[in-house]
């Protein structure tokens, strides 16, 4: 809790101070009103000094009332930016495994809504509420000093009830607020999934039905919350009544009794009644800030939980290696996503610097997993993976990733323009380099034909491009990165043969001297590899050159023959 708030501790303390001072100014104002009434009671006019004091107190209140939000609101904005930065930084540490485990909508909700709630909570709520819980003590001291010590003492008995009731209140509502946050996140995740899959829903005429299901689940959750609220709000009722009774009534009765006894005069008695507004202040705050306070506390819990999550792939703090080769080796690498379902078993192969190796095999045999392990998106369960001779678990992940350019099997393009997406790989590339990369990906002609050229929006996830265009953009992006190792996972699955041939030829020219791992189903893509590794069901079953493999009757040879038969 402390650590989330740390960046704005100063402003929060200031706001506590400001709220206290404001309460003191208010107390002074009301005491002076009492004094003035007392003077009128005694048949005189209110003294000029008293009137001056009244105005001074009013002005001081106004200044302090303005100062507190001026400090806190800004601090809240700052805290927000800082928190969001911490959360996204942490998400990056959690890395690729996040994608198969978490729901984006949830994470986005934590990074936006929860962050905003927490910032408002710490910046604009915590200080004032802490202050106003203690304000009654100040007021009682003032009453004790200026009005009547006995009244102050009797009222003081009630004071401990304030934090107590607030505590009860918090606990009572914590369940509602936690539940509410959880609901909101769940709903966010479902909405994002629905919005991104809306076309698919339409395709199956399920748009309306899905909407009904969404509405139903949110209705259920609403009911649950209302039930909880109906119970918990009873606390509010009790607190409200007890405070009104305890504070206002007790103070009034005391005022009347003490006045009858002659211990205080009429003006003081009136001041006492007016001062009870100050005593019930904490209650008002608690009621007012129900959402802010409780929502903020729940959101803080959520953010802390998110930040406490341990990355599956632990990065090392070591120095990046000085010199790097571009050879790759897998030595007895095993891996499983789920316990007891091994995906890779003792996979071993090497790629010499500048060598081009093709990885082929049936769908689901683990090819993409090999690529993910190489990029350190996953940690091997057993065995060692080396890049440039370094065990990749002993060097920084960022260094490993720097050595590798990837075209992933499922292309991800960012919302933005073609240029934005290319610059992802090389932030300071000039247009000439961009066009070169586009040429390699055989996309230059298309882009030249666009009215906005490089500034054409790609749409979210590249959906405003054709399948092949999106894929070629990804190829161009990988080319721009210009790393010694190139990993291509089905890079041309959605590209027509003509472009494919052009792309492969261009890549061939470009990859001279680079290490290439090419995953492909299309045999035309594989033919020029120096070596072919066949992966079946997580095991390397064959490896060798095309000619070597064709002599046997394995997966590869059968695949080549099948294609021949079909085409002839």
């Amino acid at each position, binding site marked *: 809790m402390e650590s989330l708030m740390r960046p704005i501790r100063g402003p929060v303390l200031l706001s506590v101070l400001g709220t206290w001072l404001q309460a003191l100014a208010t107390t002074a104002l009301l005491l002076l009103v009492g004094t003035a009434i007392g003077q009128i009671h005694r048949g005189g006019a209110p003294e000029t000094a008293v009137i001056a004091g009244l*105005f001074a107190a009013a002005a001081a209140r106004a200044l302090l009332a303005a100062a507190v939000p001026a400090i806190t609101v800004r601090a809240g904005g700052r805290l927000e930016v800082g928190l969001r930065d911490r959360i996204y930084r942490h998400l990056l540490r959690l890395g690729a495994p996040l994608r*198969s485990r978490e729901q984006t909508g949830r994470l986005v909700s934590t990074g936006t809504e929860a962050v905003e709630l927490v910032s408002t909570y710490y910046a604009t709520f915590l200080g004032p509420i802490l202050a106003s819980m203690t304000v009654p003590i100040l007021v009682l001291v003032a009453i004790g000093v200026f009005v009547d010590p006995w009244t102050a003492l009797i009222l003081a008995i009630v004071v401990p009830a304030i934090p107590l009731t607030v505590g009860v209140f918090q606990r009572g509502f914590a369940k509602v607020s936690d539940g509410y946050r959880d609901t909101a996140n769940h709903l966010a995740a479902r909405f994002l999934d629905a919005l991104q899959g809306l076309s698919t829903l339409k395709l199956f005429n399920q748009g309306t039905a899905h909407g009904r299901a969404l509405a139903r689940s949110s*209705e259920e959750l609403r009911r649950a919350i209302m039930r909880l609220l109906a119970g918990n*709000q009873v606390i509010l009722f009790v607190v409200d009544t007890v405070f009104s009774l305890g504070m206002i009534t007790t*103070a009034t009765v005391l005022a009347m009794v003490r006045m009858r006894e002659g211990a205080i005069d*009429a003006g003081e008695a*009136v001041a006492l009644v*007016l001062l009870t507004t100050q005593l019930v202040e904490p209650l008002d705050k608690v009621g007012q800030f129900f959402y802010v306070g409780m929502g903020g506390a729940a959101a803080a819990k959520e953010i802390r939980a998110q930040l406490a999550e341990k990355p599956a792939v632990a990065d090392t703090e070591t120095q990046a290696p000085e010199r790097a080769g571009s050879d790759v080796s897998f030595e007895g690498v095993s891996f499983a*996503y789920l316990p007891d379902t091994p995906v890779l078993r003792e996979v071993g192969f090497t790629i010499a610097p500048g060598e081009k190796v093709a990885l082929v095999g049936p769908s689901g045999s683990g090819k993409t997993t090999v690529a993910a392990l190489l990029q350190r998106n996953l940690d091997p369960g057993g065995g060692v993976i080396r890049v440039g001779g370094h065990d990749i678990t002993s060097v920084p992940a960022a260094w490993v990733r720097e050595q590798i350019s990837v075209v992933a099997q499922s292309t991800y393009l960012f919302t933005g323009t073609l240029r934005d997406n290319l610059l992802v790989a090389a932030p300071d590339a000039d247009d000439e380099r961009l066009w070169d990369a586009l040429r390699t990906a055989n996309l230059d002609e298309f882009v030249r034909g666009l009215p906005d050229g490089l500034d054409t929006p790609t749409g979210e996830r590249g959906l405003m491009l054709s399948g092949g265009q999106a894929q070629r953009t990804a190829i161009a992006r990988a080319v721009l990165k210009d790393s010694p190792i190139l990993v291509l996972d089905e890079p041309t699955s959605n590209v027509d043969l003509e*472009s494919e041939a052009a792309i492969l030829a261009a890549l061939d020219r470009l990859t001279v001297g680079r290490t290439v791992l090419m995953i492909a189903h299309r045999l035309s893509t594989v033919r020029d590899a120096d070596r072919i590794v066949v992966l079946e069901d997580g095991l390397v079953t064959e490896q060798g050159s095309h000619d070597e493999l064709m002599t046997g009757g394995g997966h590869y040879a059968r695949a080549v023959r099948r294609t021949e038969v079909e085409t002839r």
Partner: protein
Amino acid sequence: MTRTQISLRLLHFGRPLMTPLAVSVTFRVLQMCLGIALYGVGAWGVVHVASGDPSVIVPVAVAMVVMAFAKGLFRYVEQYAGHYVAFKLLAMLRDDFYQRIEPQAPAGVEGTRTGDLLARVMKDIDRIEVFYAHTIAPSLAAVIVPVISLSVLGAGYSPVVALVLAPFLLGVGVVVPWLSHRAAATAATDLRRARGEISQHLTDGVQGVREVLAFGYGTRRLAELEALGSSGTSAISRLGTLISMRRGLNEFLVGAGVITILLTGWAQGLSWQDIAVTVAIGLATFGPVLGVEEFMADLEQAFAGARRIWEITDRPPLVTDPPAPEPRPATASIGFDSVTFAYPGQSPPALSGVSFTVPAGSRYAVVGASGSGKSTLVSLLLRFWEPQSGTVCVGGTPVDRLGLNDLRDLVAVVGQRTFLFNDTVAANLRLARPDATQEQLEAVCRQAALHDTIMEMPEGYDTVVGEMGERLSGGQRQRLAIARALLKDAPILVLDEATSELDVHTEAEIQRQIDDLARGRTLLVIAHRLATVTDADRILVMDRGRLVEQGTHRELLARQGAYARLYARQADDLDRAAG
């Protein structure tokens, strides 16, 4: 849209909840009046005792206990009814949002910024809730309560005191909030927009986390996030300045108001008792009026949020059901007649003058370079978009004269970019047919060569596939999409690069199953790998949005045109592959 228009529209939307809303408002007013009366009675009791009448102590105490109790009860009712309205409205608003955006899909949604849409449907709607739950009741209370207490003051004590108090109340409740509303509106709009941008940025940043890491894009991504954040912070700071200014002015007016009552009462020659009571009532009356300032800041955000919601929901859907839909066609032929279509904002049309017919029950293939418009053909067939000219027919009926549901029931599609929901395998399949039995699921998965793979997963058909099918391999995702389309069992089956990520063995297996299954159905296959299309009844060759050739494999080879060239290249590749 002006604030009044927005308010009216929001009130209109909230009509079904008028009763609980009225309850909440009534009890709020009662509760606040009691709050004021509590002080009034207290002050009254004190002055009576001071005038030498100690007998009032007990009745005053009793009255106060009763009033305090009633106040607590009323507050409970107010809060409960208020929350009821708030949560109900949130659900209603979200439901309405979905219902209005659903008909706009896919044309209006595909490729748009869903992260921003998410911010709208979640956060902007949350803001709108402020309008109902925290504006209506307080603003009514801010009018009613002062009117009552001014009347009491005027009638019971001194009209002059009531008169001098009124401007202070107006100042706090009307003038000060009004002073800054324009600046506040701009800041609120900026803030809502920044929030939407941030949500979009995070959505991209999470879904593309692999690419962010692979390209060392993380630091830049964080910098971008911070830049977006600071545009939000600047809006927040502006709002903060306005709040601070309003609070300061208001508190000064309250103080000055109380002093003025005191002095006016004295100048008017009121008894000290009356002065005490008027001061107490006056002071308490500011409470509900100050409520206006409290909701002002949030109200501007509610208005900005409402604008952002309607910006989306008020867009007319691109395609709608015809007023009198024709009956479902009996046959399943496909006809394109000089169809020309360009995506909005794209100058070269994606299709120009495309005409062809696919007779019912036949098997056609579409080939052509990437970007030549193949997938667009499918979108038009499903009437996802409306062509600029020409007609698309199914079974001889133009698609725009069919009911949308009927049309989409006729066609099963395996899209080029499959989308799987973050749900179980079974649930993803049942999208195609909600009432399918387990046996039916297994049957289609066998046909898609997926059943064995699914059975190897620890939870079988109940395996959750992850967001967009992340927990499956690329080929498994494609096979699931194929199985899903097969389950739909529609008369027209369209496969758009449906097997692009499958190895040749699996592909051949599925091909065989589909051939069996497709008998009697109209089949349209889009593929880059020619091997999969050579035995089609007819092959359509697309090039830059035009249909340049069509015919059987042999005819097209004989023509020595584009297809023959493409084919020669593939054969050449294979020769080289075969060594």
